């Protein structure tokens, strides 16, 4: 199965936790560029992120975390749904990153 390298941008607290920079690259099967596929690959590469983006018990996105790519809000898309073709193509080519964002809330 062909794998593609997808850029993922992390919020500052998760960079600190993962001991990495602003952006990481994860390897994802080309046929599985879904929200779940990306996050599974991210947590495999950085196990310390387990439970910080998705709730450990429910597997759902944590309430104050958002997913953006290509200026689209993907946060509420079903995790196994294929990403919009233009987004999948941009992620697969490396033209655009997948953004994991801490929502603007609180102080």
């Amino acid at each position, binding site marked *: 199965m062909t794998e593609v390298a997808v850029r993922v941008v992390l919020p500052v607290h998760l960079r600190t936790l993962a001991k990495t920079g602003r952006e990481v690259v994860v390897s994802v099967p080309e046929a599985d560029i879904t929200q779940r596929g990306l996050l599974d690959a991210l947590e495999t590469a950085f196990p310390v992120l387990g439970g910080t983006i998705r709730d450990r018990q429910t597997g759902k996105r*944590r309430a*104050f*975390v958002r997913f953006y790519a290509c200026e689209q809000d993907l946060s509420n898309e079903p995790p196994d749904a294929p990403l919009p073709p233009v987004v999948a193509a941009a992620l697969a080519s490396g033209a655009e990153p997948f953004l994991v964002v801490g929502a603007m809330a609180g102080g």
Partner: protein
Amino acid sequence: MTQVRVLAGTRKGAFVLTSDEKREKWSVTGPHFGGWEIYHLKGSPADPNRIYASQNTGWFGQLIQRSDDGGLTWEPVGNDFTYAGGDPGTHLWYDGTPKPWEFKRIWHLEPSKTDPDTVYAGAEDAALFRSTDGGASWTELAGLRTHPTGPSWQPGAGGLCPHTIILQEPRIYVAISAAGTLRSDDGGETWRVMNKGLLSDGIPVPDAEAGHCVHHVEAHPAKPDTLFMQKHWDVMRSDDAGENWYEISGNLPSDFGFPIGVHPHEAETLYVVPITSDSLHYPPDGALRVWRSRTGGNEWEPLTDGLPQRDCYVNVYRDAMSIDTLDDAGVYFGTTGGQVYVSADSGDSWAPIVRDLPAVLSVEVQVLP
């Protein structure tokens, strides 16, 4: 040379404060985990350089950090706090409807007295977890949550939080807001509610078996069956391992508060920080006073030397008081205003160690040889 190490958890990180046994000059490191809420951090009595920290935010959830060098460096360990047994059942929500148990955060970490790799964690919604591998993995002691009164437990304003864990293994005490105090005599497998004698006006049946908003409980090591409790209202005492409680509020200006402390060498010397009321979470008259009883309760004296006696409207949270074991015991507490105070003479006089930390959530002290 003897060293004193104070571990302060705050709204925006952890700080480590160190001094010699004089406790006059302090060095401060931190923030560790800047920007994260550190509800509690505590060192292992069996290996003081082993420290566990509860790290949480509303954004990215719960982490547990572990240090093996006294807080110089940290590594995240396990954060899988899955409730045992599949369907966790329900407790009562604020509106009186059943709500499924749901993990939110770790309020308190209690390392074993004998094994640095064993540590207990009090989880909201009320559950007790134990790790025997240094925090790498956690197993729920489900007998607590599945106690027959569990479905009737209702969160206090801060959540359904098990904030007190007292280890007298195999005996364990846990206190939960707002359920009360429970005791296990078999290492956490089975539990009994220990609330006889508590009266709480804020619940439909004031002397109910469960539902009491206990804020903190302490025991003296030399008298393990004597327990002291700061309840939502009322300061209480038990002399029979929690079987029966009686009030010792005596002449306190308010018997509402959060922390309670016991002197390490004087089993009848207690400390509380009275707060005006449940709706006014600051000290009476804008004066920050620790009150000390040398008689096991009922007779209390205000300790004011070195503490602000005007225009002070901070609070002191339930885990934000600690007492060291030096001959002249040191008493420490942290405030929501970011001050950590020390008294090196059992409370007679006080001085700030730091004045401008984020709101202090917890204070623990270690004495290092």
